[in-house]
């Protein structure tokens, strides 16, 4: 269920990116897409009634039902990268606005010749 929802989020993000020429909305689309992928990754590592993958007095045996920690580690990295990309995208958005006075890529001359 959550997995389908996350795939849906990716598609919504993708639609958002390619259906608008507004820079800020495109960045929001990218973020929705990344969110979808991150949720998808978490669902891959999810185990029903799973324990946190930490050895503690309550769960000493490695044969217990652990949640896959690798997926969570991947998501952490992916969130950080997403943050960096968004920040950089906003910098470019500011630069475009400073140069053309608009957040619309069509008006900023992104479409036509160099």
């Amino acid at each position, binding site marked *: 269920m959550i997995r389908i929802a996350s795939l849906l989020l*990716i598609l919504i*993000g*993708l639609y958002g*990116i390619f259906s608008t020429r507004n*820079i800020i909305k*495109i960045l929001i689309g*990218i973020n929705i*897409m*990344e969110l979808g*992928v991150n949720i*998808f*990754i978490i669902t*891959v590592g999810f185990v029903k009634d799973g324990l946190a993958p930490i050895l503690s007095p309550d769960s000493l045996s490695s044969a217990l039902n652990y949640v896959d920690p*690798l*997926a969570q580690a*991947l998501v952490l*990295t*992916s969130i950080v*990268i*997403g943050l*960096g*990309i968004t920040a*950089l*995208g906003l910098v*470019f*958005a500011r*630069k*475009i606005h400073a*140069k*053309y006075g608009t957040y619309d*890529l069509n008006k*900023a*001359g*992104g479409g036509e010749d*160099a």
Partner: protein
Amino acid sequence: MLNPVLTIAIPLGLSFLSVILKKKRGWVLLAAACANVVMLFFLEKGEVVIGGFRAPFGINLILDAYALAGMAVAGTLFLAAVLVSRDKAERFSTVLLAALAGINGMLLTGDLFNLFVFMEITAISAYLLSSAGKKPEHSFNYLVLGSVGSVFYLLGLILLYSMTGTLNMAEMSRLAGSMEPAALAVPVFLIFTGIAVEAKLIPAGGWVRGVLGNSDSLTGALFASVYSGAALFVFGRIFADVLLSEGAVQIVLILLGLLTFAFGEAAAFRQTSIRRILLYSSIGQSGLAAMLFATGLIFPAVLVIISNSVSKFVMFTTAGKITEIHGTDDYRELGGLFRGNRLIGTAFTISALSLTGIPLLFGFYAKLNVLAAYFNGRNYFLPAVILILAMVEGAYFIRLLIRLWTPGKEGEEPDAGAATKGTGLFKPVGAAVVFILSMAILAAGLLPDHAGEFISSDGGLPGGDAPSINLSLTKGGQ
């Protein structure tokens, strides 16, 4: 012998240091680029375990002949780019150092998620570099395509992880080999789209026109040779080593490569701006290399990448400088330009002729290998297409060269044209670097067997749990 991890750690460390050493950052960059090339001679081949967890549980680095060839191409051209445009490179010292670390990491890593991280480091530095073109909308375009590509890559990667339970390349290659090819189709295409952004292949190469069409002597050379060379090496690692495709999936991958090749060459033919000609020709060559990798012809593909990277480096730096000095790169207005710049003109000509596959130059050896490899495999359709497209390529490059060497129309008295103004396109160091690279193309073309041996020098690996690319074994026909 040095640990290969140093080629990632040193540039990354210096990248942070260069923020503090604001005044000296140009020297830091130069020192790191030189050290990177020198280190290549002393690296210890084989597998490096990071953090004490052995593969497939931990992340490992693999230095085989393939990775070394990639690092040698990228590292040498990186150093050359820094030498040629030192003033421009100095502004981007921090970014460039991070890029160097990312590129080395991309080529070395033996883990698919680690590859994703290094690709992102490289990509973010590339977005920043592209903003040097003063066209933020193109950088933004590039960023959007890049992040969509990386989301696709991540999705494909995680699908593979959920199917095989590993992210290690060698382990993945072993497990994927025993799976149904149809089950791999979705992740393979997702990963393909992700890498296609950097490798400039057809579904995702839309940023190239804006970014490379406005490149200067530094960014043009970096994007067209260093970045794209490294991205293609990664493409080969994944699609010719880790995820071997067969049947319909392989045919689609080959067709996408072929389509990119044909589109690039056809589009280049119609351009009049030198940089546009070069960028479409680069797209075409990337398509050719991707096609070869998808067919499993690793050695010819590596030759194509090397030949293209070196030639494009010379040509893009020259085109960038021409634009800076003359304010245009429309070759119709630059008739006779090379008469005043004979040295650079010769270098440019050698590079262009090598790309078109004129005998005695390195590009000829690369093309010959490609064709021989296909003929050995009893494949006659693809070589025919390659030869036809090579003729198109020859036509537009020779048209360009004739114009750049001869002012005026045929039969008319030559006016001085562009020859009089702007002699000395480069500073002496830059001219020397460009000329030496073109001489390397010539030398490698005259002694092709030595060049081939040099590239594929033995990369035997200890242990069985490393990816299996070993250039000396997969050498095509010569």
